[in-house]
């Protein structure tokens, strides 16, 4: 498992899934501008089988289990169950963070953006992750 964590980029399939996720519900947290980063995935409870599939794919990078959390939606005034997992904080996620985030000096935080080279990133394998 350790060699996975030392890679600078994911193996081909994981690379595609990671990009698809970052085009959709996935996010990468990077608390400081010089430290490591981690992947965070949160889906509705109805998508639990898919979340478990993603959890299994990224399992070599995960230090803890997945969790189910109830969240309040201000718009609907209702509570919903969500399923989520986070990877450990690792350098490999900085590569993907740099691809999808820019630092907004005014907001003093990272903001997600579409990669400039989205044309070359789009493949059939990514569309399902993007859309669903």
């Amino acid at each position: 498992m350790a060699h996975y964590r030392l890679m600078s980029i994911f193996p081909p399939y994981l690379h595609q899934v990671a990009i698809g996720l970052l085009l959709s519900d996935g996010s990468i947290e990077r608390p400081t501008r010089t430290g490591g980063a981690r992947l965070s995935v949160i889906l509705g409870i109805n998508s639990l089988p898919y979340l478990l599939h993603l959890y299994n794919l990224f399992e070599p990078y995960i230090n803890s289990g997945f969790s189910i959390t109830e969240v309040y939606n201000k718009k609907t005034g209702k509570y919903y169950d969500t399923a989520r997992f986070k990877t450990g904080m690792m350098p490999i996620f900085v590569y993907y963070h740099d691809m999808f985030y820019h630092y907004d000096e005014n907001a003093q935080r990272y903001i997600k953006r579409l990669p400039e080279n989205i044309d070359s990133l789009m493949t059939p394998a990514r569309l399902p992750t993007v859309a669903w």
Partner: protein
Amino acid sequence: MGDGNLKGGEGIIRIYTNSFTRLEVEKLAFAITSKLDIKTSAVHDRNGQYILTINKFQLNAVRKLIESYMHPSMLYKLGMCGGTFGFNYKNILDQI
């Protein structure tokens, strides 16, 4: 983004890209259209937010293109149920 669905009964695929800017959604629509040959449009949703739509005449092409990559639990979102179609973990074992 994510959370795509089929518009009830009309066969229109909607992909919710609300967190991206109009320009970004337009670029993404162009990338899907040009790279995957699936005609995709950026459409205003609400409050200055944009989503992607793929018209019903492209539905079968989308299904054919991505069915082997979709996790079986998500196939219902394309109106495909009752089988695992082309997805097979064996096909990705050497790439993960």
